[in-house]
C-alpha cells in the first residue's frame, strides 16, 4: 500500500523483517534490538537500513548510528500512546536526524498534524481512506504557539 511522505502519496519500497526472519537485500527495516545485536550482518546484506522504534525504546541507543540509518519507523501500538511524539522530537532536535521518520501502527489520521509538527514526515496507515484523511488533516492549522521541528 501507498504511504504519505512529505505530503505526497508514494509507493512504499521498504520491507520490515521480524526478528526471527533472515536479512534480505534492498531497503530493510528491523527492530532496535535486532539492529543493536546484528549491526554488521545487517549492514553487509542490506543496501539501506531502517530501524523501528517501539514506544519503550530509548532513542539514545541509536545516537551514534544515525548516519548509517535511512529510515526510522516510530511505532504506535495504540493511538493513545504518545511516546513516539517525544522520541521523534529527540531524534530531530537533540540528535539532528534528518532522514525519514515514519509513523506506523495504530494511530489516527487526526493525529497526523501533531506528528508532522514534532518531525514525523512519513505515514504508513491501515487504509486508503485513512491516507486520504491524513493528507487533509496535515493542514489543520496554519499557526502554532510552539516552535516547530518539521
Amino acid at each position, binding site marked *: 500500500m501507498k504511504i504519505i511522505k512529505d505530503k505526497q502519496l508514494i509507493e512504499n519500497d521498504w520491507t520490515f523483517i521480524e526478528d526471527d526472519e533472515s536479512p534480505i537485500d534492498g531497503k530493510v527495516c528491523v527492530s532496535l534490538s535486532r539492529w543493536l545485536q546484528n549491526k554488521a550482518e545487517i549492514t553487509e546484506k542490506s543496501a539501506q537500513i531502517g530501524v523501528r522504534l517501539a514506544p519503550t525504546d530509548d532513542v539514545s541507543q541509536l545516537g551514534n548510528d544515525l548516519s548509517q540509518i535511512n529510515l526510522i519507523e516510530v511505532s504506535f501500538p495504540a493511538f493513545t500512546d504518545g*511516546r513516539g511524539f*517525544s522520541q521523534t522530537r529527540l531524534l530531530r532536535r537533540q540528535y539532528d536526524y534528518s532522514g525519514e521518520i515514519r509513523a506506523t501502527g495504530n494511530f*489516527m489520521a487526526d493525529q497526523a498534524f501533531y506528528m508532522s509538527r514534532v518531525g514525523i514526515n512519513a505515514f504508513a496507515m491501515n487504509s486508503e481512506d485513512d491516507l486520504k484523511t491524513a493528507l487533509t488533516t496535515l493542514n489543520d492549522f496554519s499557526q502554532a504557539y510552539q*516552535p516547530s521541528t518539521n
Partner: protein
Amino acid sequence: MYQYTEKDQTLINERVAQYREQTARYLDGQIGEDEFRALRLMNGLYIQTHAPMLRVAIPYGLLSSNQVRKLASICRDYDKGYCHFSTRQNVQFNWPALERVPDILAELAEVQMHAIQTSGNCMRNTTTDHLAGVCSDELIDPRPYCEIIRQWTTLHPEFAYLPRKFKIAVSSSLTDRAATQFHDIGVHIVKNDAGEIGFKILVGGGLGRTPVIGQVINPFLEQKHLLSYLEAILRVYNLHGRRDNKYKARIKILVRETGLDKIREMVEKEWLNIRDEMPLSKERVNYIKSHFTAPAYEISSADNSSLNQQLKENADFTRWYQHNTATHKIDGYRNVFVSLKAPDSPPGDITDVQLDALAELAETYSFGEIRSTHRQNLVLADVKLEAVFELWQKLAALKLATPNIGTVTDMICCPGLDFCSLANAGSIGVAKEINEKLDDLDYLYDIGEIKINMSGCMNGCAHQSVGHIGILGVDKKGVEWYQITLGGSSENEAAIGDRLGPAVRKDQIADSICDILDVYLQQRDSSEEVFLQTVKRVGIEPFKAKVYENH
C-alpha cells in the same frame, strides 16, 4: 485582561473547523467510538448519564462581561438555561447535543473562548489565585505567566497523548489560594536574594484516588527558563510515566516510584539540552504584562462614611459584607464574592438570567470583569466602597448574595450521580440535605471558617481529600454510602484528611456532619480556634466517638 491577537483568533477558529470536521466524520461512521472519544475529550466533551457535558475553559478564571453574556446565550440556546462552574475555574454545560457542539464552539470563538484541552490526557487549563492582581499579599500579578503557560500548553503537538491528564497551577501570594501543592506542577512566583523574579517549581502533587503533596524540584528557576523547564518535565513524564494502569499514570506516581532526586536529574539533563533554544524573553513577558495593567482606579479620599452608616443600619448587609467581601489592595475598593451556593440550588450552578444580570453588574461596578473561584463561586474584584451596598441589593435580588462564603454551606460539590457517569453516589442531594439542616445563619457563623468538599466517587472532582471535612460517595452493592475524612487542607499547610471510620449510610450523612460540627463547638478552646485547628489539636477521636455512638 488578555486580548487575542490575530494569531490566537486564527488558531481557535481553525480548531473549531477541525472539530466540526471530526464530528461530521464521526456521525458519518468514519471515526470509531474509541477514536472519537479521544478527539472529543480533547475538546472537553464527555458523554454523561443523560447527555453530553461540555466543559469550556476559563483561563486562570478570568471572564469579561461579553464572555459571560455569551455563556448566558449558550445556556438559553443550547442547554436548559443554566450552567455549572467547576473546581478548576472552568464552566460546564450539562445538556448540549453532540451534533451542535461545533456550533457552540464557533459561538465561543466569537468571544475568545474555547474548550481546548479541558479534558483528555493532555495539559489542562492553567489555574491561579482568584484574587490575582487585587489581593494585598502577592508578590506580582501571576496572570501574565498563566497566559504565557496557556499559550505554550495550547495545542502542544508533543504532549497531547500523555499517560494521563496534567494540571498546572500558579501562585504568587503568601496564602496559596490555588492549591498549587496538589497539582502535577505547582509554580510559585518568588524573588531571590538579588531581587529577581523567578519560580519555585513543585512537581508530583495531585488529588484523586491517591492524594499526594507536591515536592520542590527546583527552588529557584530564572524567569527566562520557565517554558524550557516545564517542557523538560513534560518530556520526561511523557516518555517515562506509567501507561500500564490508568490509576498509576499521573506524574505523582512516577515521582514516587522513581524518587524525586532521580526525576530531578532526568529533568535537568533534558533541560540542559533545550533551555537555550526556547528562552522566554523579557520583551515577551513585558508584552503579555501589558495586557494585565491595573484598571483605572479612582484613588478617592477613601471616604468610608456612607458604607459605615449602611453597615450600622442594616444587619443583613453587615452579615453579607463580613462573609462575602474581602480586602482589596487599593484603598477605597473591595473584592465582592458572588455566592453560587444558594440553599435551593446545586453548588456552582447559575442561570442564564443571572449570568446576563451579572455581566451588567460587572460593567457597572467592576470594570467589566468577573472571576471564577476554585470553590465554585464568582468574584467581582474591583468594587468601590461606596457602591458595595447598592451592589449587594442587586445581587440579593438575583439570589446571588447568600451570605455564606467560607462557611459550612459554601460546600464544593461535584455533579455526582445525578449527572456524571463515573459517580458511585449522589452529591447534590446530600448537599441540599446538609443545607436544610443548617439553615440557621447564626449557627453557621458560630461554626465559622470551614471547607466541606464532597465528591460522588474516588476520582475526587470536588477535592474531598483536602476538605476540612471531606465526603466521598462510594457504592456498596448498589447502595450509596459516604466516607468521611477530617483535617484535609489545600492551603499553605497542605494536608490530606484522615478517615473518620467506616462509611455511613445516605440517610445518616447529614446527621453525621451535624454531629461533627457539634463536637467542634464543644471541643474548641475559644471561638478564635477554627475547625481545622481544633481537629489538629484534639485529633479525630472525639469526632469518631460521637458519629458512631448511635450507629
